[in-house]
């Protein structure tokens, strides 16, 4: 049955288990991680569903995300206000999608959101440029960047509108070999 814990009610834990890919122990561990980022702000007792949000700065310093070039975008995609502050619900949701148990389709949906920097539901040329710069830490020259972005649009854009919609993105990603294992909001383990 597990230890007697007073952080969540049993229904809350069951509901979290139904809505994420985590086991009971992992959810409690996640709460521990969330709490230790800001022990004065995050209450230990979540039975009443308190309305607490942590700012982006704290979250992107987590060891799992620290080295990731897309950490700000990841946190923004999961925050409700789009500014990057996460409540515990969003926090759990984020790690659930990033875990290795999440299916490819779900990851692809969030990947699209992450790479869509201007949140217009399309990955346009400027989004691609920003992605590339983050990936290479701005080591490529301007012509190289333009060349790569043009090639990407040429390869993946199916409907000819000069930018990647979700259908184009999903189509391209589903054909990638070894897609599932590590890449694209990949298995981050807490």
């Amino acid at each position, binding site marked *: 049955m597990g230890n007697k814990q007073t952080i969540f009610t049993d229904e809350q834990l069951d509901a979290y288990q139904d809505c994420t890919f985590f086991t009971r122990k992992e959810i409690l561990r996640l709460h521990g991680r969330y709490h230790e980022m800001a022990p004065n702000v995050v209450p230990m007792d979540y039975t009443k569903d308190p309305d607490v949000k942590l700012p982006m700065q704290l979250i992107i310093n987590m060891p799992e995300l620290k080295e990731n070039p897309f950490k700000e975008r990841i946190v923004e995609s999961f925050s409700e206000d789009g500014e990057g502050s996460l409540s515990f619900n969003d926090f759990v949701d984020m790690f659930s999608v990033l875990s290795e148990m999440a299916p490819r389709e779900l990851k692809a949906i969030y990947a699209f959101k992450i790479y869509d920097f201007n949140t217009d539901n399309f990955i346009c040329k400027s989004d691609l440029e920003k992605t590339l710069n983050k990936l290479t830490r701005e080591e490529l020259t301007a012509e190289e960047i333009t060349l790569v972005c043009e090639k990407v649009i040429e390869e993946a854009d199916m409907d000819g509108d000069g930018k990647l919609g979700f259908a184009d993105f999903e189509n391209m990603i589903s054909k990638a*070999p070894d897609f599932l294992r590590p890449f694209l909001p990949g298995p981050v383990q807490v």
Partner: protein
Amino acid sequence: EDESKEEDSCSEQNRASRRKNYERNNSDGKKVGEKGIQPRETGKKAPTKDQKESANKVKKTNKKGKGGENKQKTDRKNSTSSASSNSSDEESLSEEELAMLMEQVEQKKKLISTMRNKPWRMVKKLSVLREAQAFVEKFEGALGKGKGKKLYAYKMMMAKKWVKFKRDFDNFKTQCIPWEMKIKEVESHFGSSVASYFIFLRWMYGVNLVLFGLIFGLVIIPEVLMGMPYGSMPRKTVPRAEQATAMDFSVLWDFEGYIKYSALFYGYYNNQRTIGWLKYRLPMAYFMVGISVFGYSLMVVIRSMARNANESTADGDDENFIFSWKMFTSWDYLIGNPETADNKFASITTSFKESIVDEQESNKDENIHLRRFLRVLANVLIICCLCGSGYLIYFVVKRSQTFSKMQNVGWYERNEVEIVMSLLGMFCPPLFETIAALENYHPRIGLKWQLGRIFALFLGNLYTFLLALMDDVKEKLAEEDVVRNITHWTLLGHHNSSMGNGSTAAPPLLDPADVPRGPCWETTVGIEFVRLTVSDILVTYITILVGDFIRACFVRFVNYCWCWDLEAGFPSYAEFDISGNVLGLVFNQGMIWMGSFYAPGLVGINVLRLLTSMYFQCWAVMSSNVPHERVFKASKSNNFYMGLLLLILFLSLLPVAYTIMSLPPSFDCGPFSGKKRMYEVIQETIELDFPLFVAKIFSYVANPGLIIPAILLMVAHVTKVSYKNSMRKIPIKLKMTGHPSTCLELLTHFNLQRITVTHAE
């Protein structure tokens, strides 16, 4: 106390959700009963006219078959109100309404079970989940009307308990998986392709553990506990001539002496049909365990392949999305270490630059003829190497047979075969790589060729070894006839001489150590495999120790007083060779499968080996290796290695099946001694242990005229199933190619095909 608290909050929840439902009903302007809000599952309410009308409307919309979720949600408002009124009125609950309600409950349940896959915000997921759960709970009770109500409620309760039990069990299972943290640590430092080797190793360990349990529990333990003890029979005793040296370490290391005559090897087992007070049929068990080792391995490998196949839908040779994939799939999300991250950024940049250069140079003119000539030359050279290594092994095995007849053989002569095989395995792959530089392939294709060649090398070596072993076995079989006669006459002579004293007492039995022994080819085969495995283990560990650890120490400490920078140039730190290690693991397992029938203890040795490998290699990787410099897109999908494993499984099944079917077992050792063929134990068991009609059934079933059509039927069924599966995937693939008109045509065509196939069932 917990239970009651749960119940209270549950009922509170139900009350709250029901209140919500009722409030919604009120807001819709429908009349609720005057009795007010009560937390009962059923309440008497007269159905008003509009409620009945809305019920009919809902029925119609449901009948149209549009089960869309949004529609479901908007209809739910109407349906819950009408359904609640229906559920309260016992007489008016017709078949149709019951079916509709059941369908809604099913849909809600499906929604609950797939909630975690929905791309909604958590808050939304939680609230939708709560609503769906409340709905299900409310109407599940209502569905069980009439006679079956108690039974239905009971069934539902059992289903809920079962779900909860499964969830607890899954939670428990994830806690039991060993080495999870260790592998995660390796993953965060080295990326996922290195970690995939360790995951594969752990999986192999699990499989071997099960095989070991089977063999140990069903074969070794019964013989040791219930069979005749050591020294009571010729086959279980060290012969007089060898007893002087039987405890020497060098003899034991060669697996002769006391080890040879122990339960580790085939020769120890007695051919008594039943042993002990349990009447345990040991020969039958030995045979069945041998077969089930292969059966279980086959099942586990195929299941793993099927699981992997479901996840990967694409063929890896698609070259259409190079830049897109580089952009979106090159970052390894498992990296948590800044040094590794730096490496990764650098390699991504390099990779992009390379692709850009490739793109810009793609129209360069190349001398095709020169390239072709070089490739042919390289292949010829490599085939020469392979033939050479095969011949070398054959020669060495033949030589070891002559050595075994000589006295005073040194350590080298005794172990020559194993040394040569290990050396070949160590030096040929780098040789292949150097020759392959002539071919000038793309690195990914080059790696495939390299892996294929190493595979051919190992396979060739193994089979040459087997062939040479077969010759040895045939010789031993010939020798056996001679020895059998000698033994027979010796025993007779001893019997007569002891009877010649004229006493009427029973003749003293010849001491088991003095009975002349047959050559027992099965034990020899088992010993050869065990020695090969042990030397393979040693070579692997020494290679890791010297090639990785000593090298790292040297580079680290000698770098202070060396002319050039050891860390940047030659030799620098080693990278973890994933494919080499995985291939080694796969081939090692092949040897285990081949040898386990003749040496039941071999699987135990392998379990120990895998266990120590895990710790040793994890330590070696963390302490002496550096992450890969190149972002190698050559990371194979797991299915490639599983496919290799499957191939090796079949290839190792062949020699064992051949020897079981066509070679006669030794006359004086092993559980099948005295029979003409090993598989006769099955016939014997059927005749003696089962009632008569079973034997008759088997004799009919074993008719080829029945077996061949059965096999054909199975093949036909498998083909049909895989055809149906591929049919299902094609429309999805077509949708992706973006050619609407042809897509539509082909889609309808395939849908028709699918319908005809399903109709034909």
